[in-house]
Protein backbone atom coordinates (compact mmCIF):
# COMPACT_ATOMS: atom_id res chain seq x y z
CA UNK A 1 0.00 0.00 0.00
CA UNK A 2 1.19 3.45 -0.80
CA UNK A 3 1.80 6.19 1.72
CA UNK A 4 -1.33 8.04 0.71
CA UNK A 5 -3.50 5.03 1.48
CA UNK A 6 -1.88 4.55 4.90
CA UNK A 7 -2.22 8.23 5.54
CA UNK A 8 -5.84 8.03 4.44
CA UNK A 9 -6.74 5.22 6.82
CA UNK A 10 -4.92 6.95 9.64
CA UNK A 11 -6.91 10.12 9.02
CA UNK A 12 -10.15 8.22 8.71
CA UNK A 13 -9.40 6.15 11.79
CA UNK A 14 -9.02 9.33 13.81
CA UNK A 15 -12.12 11.01 12.37
CA UNK A 16 -14.31 7.96 12.84
CA UNK A 17 -12.56 7.54 16.18
CA UNK A 18 -14.85 10.14 17.71
CA UNK A 19 -17.78 7.92 16.72
CA UNK A 20 -16.06 4.88 18.27
CA UNK A 21 -15.59 6.86 21.48
CA UNK A 22 -19.31 7.61 21.41
CA UNK A 23 -20.12 3.92 21.02
CA UNK A 24 -17.66 3.15 23.80
CA UNK A 25 -19.41 5.62 26.10
CA UNK A 26 -22.90 4.25 25.51
CA UNK A 27 -22.20 0.53 25.11
CA UNK A 28 -19.28 0.05 27.46
CA UNK A 29 -19.38 2.81 30.03
CA UNK A 30 -23.13 3.17 30.33
CA UNK A 31 -23.87 -0.45 29.35
CA UNK A 32 -26.70 0.84 27.17
CA UNK A 33 -27.17 -0.73 23.70
CA UNK A 34 -27.80 2.56 21.97
CA UNK A 35 -28.90 2.24 18.35
CA UNK A 36 -29.42 5.98 17.92
CA UNK A 37 -25.85 6.11 16.61
CA UNK A 38 -26.72 5.34 12.97
CA UNK A 39 -29.09 8.30 12.84
CA UNK A 40 -26.89 10.65 14.87
CA UNK A 41 -23.89 10.13 12.63
CA UNK A 42 -25.87 11.23 9.57
CA UNK A 43 -27.44 14.01 11.62
CA UNK A 44 -23.99 15.42 12.35
CA UNK A 45 -23.09 15.28 8.68
CA UNK A 46 -26.42 16.69 7.50
CA UNK A 47 -26.38 19.65 9.87
CA UNK A 48 -22.78 20.42 9.04
CA UNK A 49 -23.41 20.36 5.27
CA UNK A 50 -26.54 22.44 5.64
CA UNK A 51 -24.85 25.06 7.82
CA UNK A 52 -21.79 25.31 5.59
CA UNK A 53 -23.98 25.72 2.50
CA UNK A 54 -25.85 28.48 4.33
CA UNK A 55 -22.51 30.24 4.65
CA UNK A 56 -21.65 29.60 8.27
CA UNK A 57 -18.10 28.91 9.36
CA UNK A 58 -17.32 25.18 9.29
CA UNK A 59 -16.40 25.38 12.98
CA UNK A 60 -19.79 26.82 13.79
CA UNK A 61 -21.35 24.06 11.73
CA UNK A 62 -19.36 21.52 13.72
CA UNK A 63 -20.50 22.98 17.01
CA UNK A 64 -24.17 22.96 15.99
CA UNK A 65 -23.82 19.36 14.84
CA UNK A 66 -22.37 18.31 18.20
CA UNK A 67 -25.14 20.03 20.13
CA UNK A 68 -27.86 18.46 18.00
CA UNK A 69 -26.22 15.05 18.39
CA UNK A 70 -26.39 15.49 22.14
CA UNK A 71 -30.03 16.42 21.83
CA UNK A 72 -30.75 13.25 19.84
CA UNK A 73 -29.16 11.22 22.62
CA UNK A 74 -31.37 12.96 25.14
CA UNK A 75 -34.46 12.02 23.14
CA UNK A 76 -33.46 8.36 23.32
CA UNK A 77 -32.77 8.72 27.05
CA UNK A 78 -36.14 10.33 27.58
CA UNK A 79 -37.95 7.56 25.68
CA UNK A 80 -36.28 5.06 27.98
CA UNK A 81 -36.35 6.76 31.38
CA UNK A 82 -39.41 8.96 30.90
CA UNK A 83 -41.70 6.71 28.88
CA UNK A 84 -40.14 3.40 29.95
CA UNK A 85 -39.48 2.17 26.42
CA UNK A 86 -36.94 -0.67 26.33
CA UNK A 87 -33.35 0.50 25.65
CA UNK A 88 -32.99 -1.13 22.23
CA UNK A 89 -36.37 0.09 21.03
CA UNK A 90 -35.88 3.65 22.26
CA UNK A 91 -32.69 3.87 20.21
CA UNK A 92 -34.35 2.41 17.15
CA UNK A 93 -37.25 4.84 17.43
CA UNK A 94 -34.95 7.85 17.52
CA UNK A 95 -32.79 6.45 14.74
CA UNK A 96 -35.77 5.96 12.41
CA UNK A 97 -37.18 9.38 13.25
CA UNK A 98 -33.78 10.90 12.53
CA UNK A 99 -33.80 9.41 9.03
CA UNK A 100 -36.72 11.66 8.10
CA UNK A 101 -35.29 14.58 9.99
CA UNK A 102 -31.95 14.21 8.24
CA UNK A 103 -33.68 14.22 4.84
CA UNK A 104 -35.54 17.34 5.84
CA UNK A 105 -32.36 19.07 6.95
CA UNK A 106 -30.58 18.18 3.73
CA UNK A 107 -33.57 18.67 1.44
CA UNK A 108 -32.17 15.92 -0.79
CA UNK A 109 -30.37 12.63 -0.32
CA UNK A 110 -26.91 14.02 -0.95
CA UNK A 111 -25.25 17.38 -0.38
CA UNK A 112 -21.89 18.20 -1.89
CA UNK A 113 -19.37 20.45 -0.14
CA UNK A 114 -16.80 20.29 -2.92
CA UNK A 115 -16.59 24.01 -3.59
CA UNK A 116 -17.11 25.00 0.06
CA UNK A 117 -14.71 25.92 2.80
CA UNK A 118 -14.37 23.13 5.35
CA UNK A 119 -12.00 22.79 8.28
CA UNK A 120 -9.91 20.52 6.05
CA UNK A 121 -9.65 22.79 3.01
CA UNK A 122 -8.24 25.42 5.34
CA UNK A 123 -5.43 23.30 6.74
CA UNK A 124 -4.91 21.84 3.28
CA UNK A 125 -4.00 25.31 2.06
CA UNK A 126 -1.07 25.63 4.44
CA UNK A 127 1.80 24.62 2.16
CA UNK A 128 4.20 23.99 4.98
CA UNK A 129 2.14 21.13 6.38
CA UNK A 130 1.61 19.40 3.02
CA UNK A 131 0.47 16.54 3.01
CA UNK A 132 0.10 16.20 6.79
CA UNK A 133 -2.39 19.02 7.33
CA UNK A 134 -5.62 16.96 7.60
CA UNK A 135 -3.88 14.32 9.71
CA UNK A 136 -2.60 16.92 12.17
CA UNK A 137 -6.00 18.53 12.40
CA UNK A 138 -7.71 15.18 12.97
CA UNK A 139 -5.10 14.28 15.55
CA UNK A 140 -5.56 17.57 17.37
CA UNK A 141 -9.32 17.13 17.51
CA UNK A 142 -9.05 13.54 18.73
CA UNK A 143 -6.41 14.31 21.36
CA UNK A 144 -8.60 17.12 22.60
CA UNK A 145 -11.69 14.90 22.73
CA UNK A 146 -9.91 12.01 24.45
CA UNK A 147 -8.35 14.41 26.95
CA UNK A 148 -11.66 16.05 27.81
CA UNK A 149 -13.40 12.70 28.05
CA UNK A 150 -10.67 11.35 30.29
CA UNK A 151 -11.05 14.30 32.62
CA UNK A 152 -14.82 14.15 32.53
CA UNK A 153 -14.99 10.47 33.43
CA UNK A 154 -13.07 11.25 36.61
CA UNK A 155 -15.33 14.03 37.80
CA UNK A 156 -18.14 13.37 40.26
CA UNK A 157 -20.60 13.41 37.40
CA UNK A 158 -18.49 11.23 35.13
CA UNK A 159 -17.90 8.69 37.88
CA UNK A 160 -21.63 8.53 38.56
CA UNK A 161 -22.27 7.84 34.87
CA UNK A 162 -19.73 5.02 34.98
CA UNK A 163 -21.23 3.62 38.16
CA UNK A 164 -24.68 3.70 36.55
CA UNK A 165 -23.38 1.48 33.77
CA UNK A 166 -21.65 -0.80 36.24
CA UNK A 167 -24.20 -1.23 39.02
CA UNK A 168 -27.43 0.71 38.84
CA UNK A 169 -28.84 -0.58 42.12
CA UNK A 170 -25.73 0.41 44.01
CA UNK A 171 -25.41 3.92 42.69
CA UNK A 172 -29.10 4.58 43.28
CA UNK A 173 -28.64 3.52 46.88
CA UNK A 174 -25.85 6.11 46.99
CA UNK A 175 -28.28 8.84 46.05
CA UNK A 176 -27.77 9.18 42.31
CA UNK A 177 -30.67 9.59 39.92
CA UNK A 178 -29.75 6.96 37.36
CA UNK A 179 -32.22 8.35 34.83
CA UNK A 180 -30.29 11.61 34.77
CA UNK A 181 -27.00 9.75 34.43
CA UNK A 182 -28.32 7.86 31.41
CA UNK A 183 -29.41 11.17 29.93
CA UNK A 184 -25.92 12.59 30.43
CA UNK A 185 -24.20 9.48 29.08
CA UNK A 186 -26.40 9.19 26.00
CA UNK A 187 -26.09 12.91 25.29
CA UNK A 188 -22.30 12.76 25.42
CA UNK A 189 -22.10 9.55 23.42
CA UNK A 190 -24.31 10.88 20.66
CA UNK A 191 -22.61 14.28 20.69
CA UNK A 192 -19.38 12.44 19.94
CA UNK A 193 -21.02 10.46 17.15
CA UNK A 194 -22.40 13.66 15.59
CA UNK A 195 -18.96 15.24 15.92
CA UNK A 196 -17.59 12.33 13.96
CA UNK A 197 -20.33 12.69 11.34
CA UNK A 198 -19.49 16.36 10.98
CA UNK A 199 -15.77 15.69 10.63
CA UNK A 200 -16.32 12.92 8.10
CA UNK A 201 -18.69 15.01 5.99
CA UNK A 202 -16.14 17.82 5.85
CA UNK A 203 -13.32 15.39 5.12
CA UNK A 204 -15.14 13.57 2.33
CA UNK A 205 -16.72 16.76 0.99
CA UNK A 206 -20.30 15.50 1.08
CA UNK A 207 -23.12 14.39 3.32
CA UNK A 208 -25.26 11.44 2.33
CA UNK A 209 -28.46 10.33 3.99
CA UNK A 210 -27.23 6.73 4.06
CA UNK A 211 -23.76 7.38 5.44
CA UNK A 212 -24.70 6.40 9.00
CA UNK A 213 -26.04 2.96 8.16
CA UNK A 214 -24.12 0.28 10.03
CA UNK A 215 -22.18 2.80 12.12
CA UNK A 216 -22.96 0.96 15.36
CA UNK A 217 -21.51 -2.26 14.08
CA UNK A 218 -18.43 -0.49 12.75
CA UNK A 219 -18.09 1.18 16.13
CA UNK A 220 -18.46 -2.11 17.99
CA UNK A 221 -15.93 -3.78 15.70
CA UNK A 222 -13.46 -0.98 16.42
CA UNK A 223 -14.03 -1.16 20.18
CA UNK A 224 -13.55 -4.94 20.16
CA UNK A 225 -10.38 -4.73 18.07
CA UNK A 226 -9.04 -1.94 20.23
CA UNK A 227 -9.67 -3.68 23.53
CA UNK A 228 -8.12 -6.87 22.19
CA UNK A 229 -4.98 -5.00 21.13
CA UNK A 230 -4.61 -2.31 23.78
CA UNK A 231 -6.65 -3.71 26.67
CA UNK A 232 -8.97 -1.97 29.09
CA UNK A 233 -7.15 -2.20 32.39
CA UNK A 234 -7.36 1.51 33.03
CA UNK A 235 -9.69 4.24 31.93
CA UNK A 236 -7.04 5.89 29.81
CA UNK A 237 -6.19 2.61 28.11
CA UNK A 238 -9.83 2.03 27.27
CA UNK A 239 -10.10 5.42 25.60
CA UNK A 240 -6.86 4.83 23.74
CA UNK A 241 -8.15 1.41 22.73
CA UNK A 242 -11.19 2.95 21.09
CA UNK A 243 -9.02 5.20 18.93
CA UNK A 244 -6.47 2.49 18.16
CA UNK A 245 -9.30 0.11 17.28
CA UNK A 246 -10.78 2.68 14.97
CA UNK A 247 -7.48 3.18 13.15
CA UNK A 248 -6.83 -0.54 12.79
CA UNK A 249 -10.39 -1.10 11.62
CA UNK A 250 -10.07 1.57 8.93
CA UNK A 251 -6.73 0.15 7.87
CA UNK A 252 -8.24 -3.32 7.54
CA UNK A 253 -11.10 -1.89 5.51
CA UNK A 254 -8.62 -0.02 3.31
CA UNK A 255 -6.66 -3.21 2.85
CA UNK A 256 -9.56 -5.46 1.88
CA UNK A 257 -10.76 -2.81 -0.57
CA UNK A 258 -7.27 -2.76 -2.07
CA UNK A 259 -7.41 -6.52 -2.36
CA UNK A 260 -10.48 -6.14 -4.53
CA UNK A 261 -13.43 -6.62 -2.19
CA UNK A 262 -16.39 -4.66 -3.58
CA UNK A 263 -17.24 -1.71 -1.36
CA UNK A 264 -20.83 -2.92 -1.20
CA UNK A 265 -19.72 -6.02 0.74
CA UNK A 266 -18.10 -3.98 3.51
CA UNK A 267 -21.05 -4.09 5.89
CA UNK A 268 -21.27 -7.87 5.56
CA UNK A 269 -17.57 -8.03 6.31
CA UNK A 270 -17.89 -5.80 9.37
CA UNK A 271 -20.83 -7.76 10.73
CA UNK A 272 -18.82 -10.94 10.36
CA UNK A 273 -15.93 -9.46 12.35
CA UNK A 274 -18.28 -8.66 15.21
CA UNK A 275 -20.09 -12.02 15.04
CA UNK A 276 -16.82 -13.93 15.07
CA UNK A 277 -15.55 -11.86 18.00
CA UNK A 278 -18.74 -12.41 19.97
CA UNK A 279 -18.76 -16.12 19.16
CA UNK A 280 -15.71 -16.70 21.34
CA UNK A 281 -16.99 -16.96 24.90
CA UNK A 282 -13.63 -15.93 26.24
CA UNK A 283 -13.45 -12.86 24.02
CA UNK A 284 -17.03 -12.07 24.88
CA UNK A 285 -16.39 -12.34 28.57
CA UNK A 286 -13.17 -10.41 28.55
CA UNK A 287 -14.58 -7.67 26.40
CA UNK A 288 -17.74 -7.21 28.37
CA UNK A 289 -20.71 -5.93 26.38
CA UNK A 290 -23.02 -7.15 29.08
CA UNK A 291 -25.88 -5.46 27.29
CA UNK A 292 -25.33 -7.62 24.23
CA UNK A 293 -25.31 -10.87 26.08
CA UNK A 294 -27.99 -13.07 27.50
CA UNK A 295 -28.92 -12.53 31.11
CA UNK A 296 -27.91 -15.98 32.29
CA UNK A 297 -24.41 -15.56 31.08
CA UNK A 298 -23.84 -12.61 33.37
CA UNK A 299 -24.66 -14.83 36.32
CA UNK A 300 -22.45 -17.60 35.02
CA UNK A 301 -19.63 -15.14 34.76
CA UNK A 302 -19.94 -13.70 38.23
CA UNK A 303 -20.01 -17.24 39.50
CA UNK A 304 -19.90 -17.73 43.22
CA UNK A 305 -23.09 -16.17 44.43
CA UNK A 306 -26.19 -18.32 44.17
CA UNK A 307 -29.65 -17.62 45.41
CA UNK A 308 -29.70 -21.02 46.97
CA UNK A 309 -30.90 -19.82 50.36
CA UNK A 310 -31.72 -23.05 52.23
CA UNK A 311 -28.22 -24.42 51.83
CA UNK A 312 -26.80 -21.32 53.38
CA UNK A 313 -24.94 -21.32 56.66
CA UNK A 314 -24.08 -18.32 58.69
Amino acid at each position, binding site marked *: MSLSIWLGSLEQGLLWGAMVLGVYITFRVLDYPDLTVDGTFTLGAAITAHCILLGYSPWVALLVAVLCGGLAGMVTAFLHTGLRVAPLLSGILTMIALYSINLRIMGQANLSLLREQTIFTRVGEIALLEPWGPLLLALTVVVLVVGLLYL*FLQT*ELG*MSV*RATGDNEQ*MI*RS*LGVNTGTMKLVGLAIGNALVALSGSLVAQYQGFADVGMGIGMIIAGLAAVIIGEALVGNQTLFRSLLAAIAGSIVYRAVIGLVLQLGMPATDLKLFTSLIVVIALAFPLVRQRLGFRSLRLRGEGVAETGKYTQDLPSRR*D
Partner: protein
Amino acid sequence: MLRLENIHKIFHPGGINEKVALKGINLFVRAGDVVTIIGSNGAGKSTLLNVIAGVYRVDGGKVILDGEDITHWPEHIRAARIGRVFQDPLQGTAASMTIEENLALALRRGRSRRLRPGITQAERQLFKERLALLGLGLENRLSTRVGLLSGGQRQALAVLMATIATPKILLLDEHTAALDPRTAATVMELTERIIARHRLTTLMVTHNLAQALHTGNRTIMMHEGRIILDLCGPERERTTVADLLRMFEQASGDAFTYDRALLSGS
Protein backbone atom coordinates in the same frame (compact mmCIF):
# COMPACT_ATOMS: atom_id res chain seq x y z
CA MET B 1 -36.08 8.12 64.49
CA LEU B 2 -37.92 5.75 62.18
CA ARG B 3 -41.65 5.25 62.33
CA LEU B 4 -43.58 2.85 60.13
CA GLU B 5 -47.34 3.24 60.24
CA ASN B 6 -49.55 0.45 58.98
CA ILE B 7 -47.37 -0.39 55.98
CA HIS B 8 -48.90 -2.56 53.28
CA LYS B 9 -47.11 -3.86 50.24
CA ILE B 10 -48.73 -5.95 47.53
CA PHE B 11 -46.79 -7.31 44.56
CA HIS B 12 -48.67 -7.69 41.27
CA PRO B 13 -52.00 -6.51 42.73
CA GLY B 14 -54.98 -8.05 40.97
CA GLY B 15 -52.82 -10.43 38.93
CA ILE B 16 -52.59 -14.19 39.29
CA ASN B 17 -49.23 -13.69 41.01
CA GLU B 18 -50.67 -11.33 43.58
CA LYS B 19 -48.60 -11.48 46.74
CA VAL B 20 -49.27 -9.51 49.86
CA ALA B 21 -45.76 -9.14 51.22
CA LEU B 22 -46.40 -6.71 54.09
CA LYS B 23 -49.69 -6.72 55.99
CA GLY B 24 -49.86 -3.69 58.25
CA ILE B 25 -46.41 -3.21 59.71
CA ASN B 26 -46.18 -0.82 62.67
CA LEU B 27 -42.75 -0.15 64.03
CA PHE B 28 -41.07 2.61 65.96
CA VAL B 29 -37.30 2.63 66.15
CA ARG B 30 -35.58 5.07 68.50
CA ALA B 31 -32.36 6.86 67.62
CA GLY B 32 -29.44 4.59 68.41
CA ASP B 33 -31.52 1.41 68.41
CA VAL B 34 -29.94 -1.59 66.78
CA VAL B 35 -32.78 -3.86 65.76
CA THR B 36 -32.21 -7.37 64.44
CA ILE B 37 -34.92 -8.83 62.22
CA ILE B 38 -35.52 -12.56 61.90
CA GLY B 39 -38.15 -14.65 60.15
CA SER B 40 -38.54 -17.45 57.65
CA ASN B 41 -37.90 -17.19 53.95
CA GLY B 42 -40.51 -15.03 52.31
CA ALA B 43 -41.59 -13.42 55.58
CA GLY B 44 -41.12 -9.97 54.07
CA LYS B 45 -37.88 -8.89 55.73
CA SER B 46 -36.16 -7.75 52.55
CA THR B 47 -39.38 -6.16 51.33
CA LEU B 48 -39.54 -4.18 54.58
CA LEU B 49 -36.02 -2.82 54.12
CA ASN B 50 -36.74 -2.06 50.47
CA VAL B 51 -39.86 -0.15 51.46
CA ILE B 52 -37.84 1.91 53.93
CA ALA B 53 -35.15 2.57 51.32
CA GLY B 54 -37.73 3.48 48.69
CA VAL B 55 -36.96 0.69 46.22
CA TYR B 56 -40.66 -0.22 46.38
CA ARG B 57 -43.58 2.15 46.82
CA VAL B 58 -45.98 1.19 49.59
CA ASP B 59 -49.61 0.34 48.88
CA GLY B 60 -50.70 1.82 52.19
CA GLY B 61 -49.19 3.37 55.27
CA LYS B 62 -46.49 5.88 56.03
CA VAL B 63 -42.73 5.88 56.39
CA ILE B 64 -41.47 8.63 58.68
CA LEU B 65 -37.76 9.13 59.16
CA ASP B 66 -36.48 11.63 61.70
CA GLY B 67 -39.75 13.56 61.64
CA GLU B 68 -39.98 13.73 57.85
CA ASP B 69 -42.66 11.87 55.94
CA ILE B 70 -40.58 10.18 53.23
CA THR B 71 -43.32 7.84 52.00
CA HIS B 72 -43.38 9.38 48.55
CA TRP B 73 -39.72 10.24 48.15
CA PRO B 74 -37.89 8.41 45.35
CA GLU B 75 -35.08 6.06 46.33
CA HIS B 76 -32.19 8.31 45.30
CA ILE B 77 -33.49 11.19 47.41
CA ARG B 78 -33.97 9.02 50.50
CA ALA B 79 -30.50 7.65 49.98
CA ALA B 80 -29.09 10.85 51.45
CA ARG B 81 -30.29 9.61 54.83
CA ILE B 82 -30.00 5.85 54.45
CA GLY B 83 -26.99 3.56 54.27
CA ARG B 84 -27.48 0.07 52.85
CA VAL B 85 -25.55 -3.15 52.57
CA PHE B 86 -27.02 -5.92 50.45
CA GLN B 87 -26.75 -9.66 50.82
CA ASP B 88 -24.85 -10.11 47.58
CA PRO B 89 -21.33 -8.63 47.72
CA LEU B 90 -21.60 -7.96 43.98
CA GLN B 91 -24.63 -5.76 44.54
CA GLY B 92 -23.07 -3.17 46.80
CA THR B 93 -19.95 -2.25 44.87
CA ALA B 94 -19.05 -1.28 41.30
CA ALA B 95 -16.72 -3.99 40.01
CA SER B 96 -15.16 -2.07 37.14
CA MET B 97 -14.22 0.86 39.34
CA THR B 98 -11.36 1.13 41.79
CA ILE B 99 -11.58 0.94 45.58
CA GLU B 100 -11.03 4.67 45.93
CA GLU B 101 -13.60 5.45 43.23
CA ASN B 102 -16.20 3.31 45.00
CA LEU B 103 -15.48 5.04 48.29
CA ALA B 104 -15.58 8.47 46.67
CA LEU B 105 -18.99 7.68 45.18
CA ALA B 106 -20.16 6.58 48.62
CA LEU B 107 -18.71 9.60 50.37
CA ARG B 108 -20.92 11.78 48.15
CA ARG B 109 -24.09 9.91 49.02
CA GLY B 110 -26.98 12.32 48.88
CA ARG B 111 -24.95 15.16 47.38
CA SER B 112 -25.39 16.44 43.84
CA ARG B 113 -22.77 15.23 41.40
CA ARG B 114 -21.07 18.05 39.56
CA LEU B 115 -18.13 18.61 37.28
CA ARG B 116 -15.76 18.67 40.22
CA PRO B 117 -12.88 16.23 40.67
CA GLY B 118 -14.33 12.86 41.63
CA ILE B 119 -11.66 12.23 44.28
CA THR B 120 -9.48 14.73 46.11
CA GLN B 121 -6.13 14.12 47.71
CA ALA B 122 -7.54 14.77 51.18
CA GLU B 123 -10.21 12.13 50.56
CA ARG B 124 -7.56 9.59 49.58
CA GLN B 125 -5.99 10.12 53.00
CA LEU B 126 -9.36 9.59 54.68
CA PHE B 127 -9.96 6.40 52.66
CA LYS B 128 -6.58 5.05 53.68
CA GLU B 129 -7.32 5.64 57.34
CA ARG B 130 -10.73 4.05 57.15
CA LEU B 131 -9.54 1.10 55.09
CA ALA B 132 -6.73 0.48 57.55
CA LEU B 133 -9.37 -0.05 60.24
CA LEU B 134 -10.71 -3.01 58.27
CA GLY B 135 -7.40 -4.77 58.75
CA LEU B 136 -7.52 -6.32 55.28
CA GLY B 137 -4.62 -4.43 53.79
CA LEU B 138 -6.90 -2.64 51.35
CA GLU B 139 -5.40 0.72 52.31
CA ASN B 140 -2.47 -0.06 50.02
CA ARG B 141 -4.65 -1.01 47.08
CA LEU B 142 -6.65 2.17 46.53
CA SER B 143 -6.45 1.92 42.75
CA THR B 144 -7.25 -1.80 42.52
CA ARG B 145 -10.47 -2.58 40.71
CA VAL B 146 -13.08 -3.88 43.12
CA GLY B 147 -13.87 -6.76 40.76
CA LEU B 148 -10.50 -8.26 41.71
CA LEU B 149 -11.37 -8.47 45.43
CA SER B 150 -12.82 -11.49 47.20
CA GLY B 151 -16.45 -11.56 48.30
CA GLY B 152 -15.50 -10.88 51.91
CA GLN B 153 -13.25 -7.98 50.99
CA ARG B 154 -15.99 -6.54 48.80
CA GLN B 155 -18.54 -6.87 51.57
CA ALA B 156 -16.23 -5.24 54.11
CA LEU B 157 -15.79 -2.41 51.60
CA ALA B 158 -19.57 -2.24 51.16
CA VAL B 159 -20.04 -1.82 54.92
CA LEU B 160 -17.49 0.98 54.90
CA MET B 161 -19.20 2.57 51.87
CA ALA B 162 -22.62 2.48 53.53
CA THR B 163 -21.30 4.29 56.58
CA ILE B 164 -18.54 6.60 55.32
CA ALA B 165 -21.06 9.40 54.90
CA THR B 166 -22.83 8.90 58.22
CA PRO B 167 -26.43 7.83 57.52
CA LYS B 168 -29.45 8.49 59.73
CA ILE B 169 -30.26 4.83 59.54
CA LEU B 170 -28.31 1.78 58.39
CA LEU B 171 -30.10 -1.12 56.67
CA LEU B 172 -28.31 -4.46 56.54
CA ASP B 173 -29.96 -7.32 54.67
CA GLU B 174 -28.24 -10.60 55.57
CA HIS B 175 -25.01 -8.92 54.60
CA THR B 176 -22.84 -11.78 55.79
CA ALA B 177 -24.96 -14.62 54.41
CA ALA B 178 -23.00 -15.10 51.20
CA LEU B 179 -19.65 -15.31 52.98
CA ASP B 180 -17.82 -18.27 54.47
CA PRO B 181 -18.17 -18.51 58.28
CA ARG B 182 -14.82 -16.98 59.11
CA THR B 183 -15.15 -14.06 56.72
CA ALA B 184 -18.73 -13.60 57.88
CA ALA B 185 -17.51 -13.27 61.46
CA THR B 186 -14.90 -10.72 60.45
CA VAL B 187 -17.40 -8.62 58.52
CA MET B 188 -19.90 -8.87 61.37
CA GLU B 189 -17.35 -7.80 63.91
CA LEU B 190 -16.40 -4.88 61.70
CA THR B 191 -20.03 -3.91 61.29
CA GLU B 192 -20.61 -3.88 65.03
CA ARG B 193 -17.54 -1.75 65.52
CA ILE B 194 -18.70 0.84 62.97
CA ILE B 195 -22.23 0.89 64.39
CA ALA B 196 -20.90 1.47 67.88
CA ARG B 197 -18.43 4.10 66.76
CA HIS B 198 -21.05 6.26 65.06
CA ARG B 199 -23.97 5.17 67.28
CA LEU B 200 -25.88 4.28 64.12
CA THR B 201 -29.56 3.48 64.22
CA THR B 202 -29.61 0.11 62.49
CA LEU B 203 -31.98 -2.50 61.13
CA MET B 204 -30.25 -5.80 60.48
CA VAL B 205 -31.86 -8.83 58.87
CA THR B 206 -30.21 -12.11 59.81
CA HIS B 207 -30.95 -15.81 59.74
CA ASN B 208 -28.60 -16.50 62.59
CA LEU B 209 -30.74 -16.56 65.76
CA ALA B 210 -27.82 -16.48 68.17
CA GLN B 211 -26.46 -13.46 66.35
CA ALA B 212 -29.90 -11.86 66.35
CA LEU B 213 -30.02 -12.10 70.13
CA HIS B 214 -26.56 -10.91 71.01
CA THR B 215 -26.26 -8.13 68.42
CA GLY B 216 -28.04 -4.87 69.15
CA ASN B 217 -30.69 -4.12 71.74
CA ARG B 218 -33.90 -5.31 70.14
CA THR B 219 -35.10 -8.23 68.05
CA ILE B 220 -38.24 -8.49 65.95
CA MET B 221 -39.58 -11.59 64.26
CA MET B 222 -41.59 -11.44 61.06
CA HIS B 223 -43.91 -13.99 59.61
CA GLU B 224 -46.03 -13.72 56.47
CA GLY B 225 -45.81 -9.96 56.26
CA ARG B 226 -46.44 -9.26 59.95
CA ILE B 227 -44.29 -8.55 62.97
CA ILE B 228 -45.17 -11.37 65.33
CA LEU B 229 -42.63 -10.76 68.06
CA ASP B 230 -40.84 -7.72 69.42
CA LEU B 231 -38.22 -8.31 72.10
CA CYS B 232 -36.13 -5.84 74.04
CA GLY B 233 -34.76 -5.14 77.48
CA PRO B 234 -34.59 -7.80 80.21
CA GLU B 235 -37.09 -9.99 78.39
CA ARG B 236 -34.69 -10.21 75.49
CA GLU B 237 -31.77 -10.85 77.83
CA ARG B 238 -33.51 -13.94 79.15
CA THR B 239 -34.49 -15.25 75.73
CA THR B 240 -32.52 -18.14 74.28
CA VAL B 241 -32.37 -19.50 70.76
CA ALA B 242 -34.60 -22.38 71.86
CA ASP B 243 -37.13 -19.88 73.23
CA LEU B 244 -37.14 -18.07 69.94
CA LEU B 245 -37.89 -21.28 68.09
CA ARG B 246 -40.75 -22.03 70.45
CA MET B 247 -42.14 -18.51 70.26
CA PHE B 248 -42.02 -18.72 66.54
CA GLU B 249 -44.16 -21.86 66.57
CA GLN B 250 -46.67 -20.38 68.99
CA ALA B 251 -46.98 -16.99 67.38
CA SER B 252 -47.25 -18.16 63.83
CA GLY B 253 -49.69 -20.85 64.88
CA ASP B 254 -49.41 -22.83 61.69
CA ALA B 255 -47.25 -25.55 60.30
CA PHE B 256 -43.68 -24.98 61.32
CA THR B 257 -41.82 -24.58 58.09
CA TYR B 258 -38.71 -23.00 59.42
CA ASP B 259 -35.69 -25.18 58.98
CA ARG B 260 -34.46 -25.88 62.51
CA ALA B 261 -30.94 -26.59 61.40
CA LEU B 262 -30.84 -23.28 59.65
CA LEU B 263 -32.20 -21.42 62.62
CA SER B 264 -30.17 -22.98 65.38
CA GLY B 265 -27.29 -20.86 64.21
CA SER B 266 -24.54 -22.24 66.40
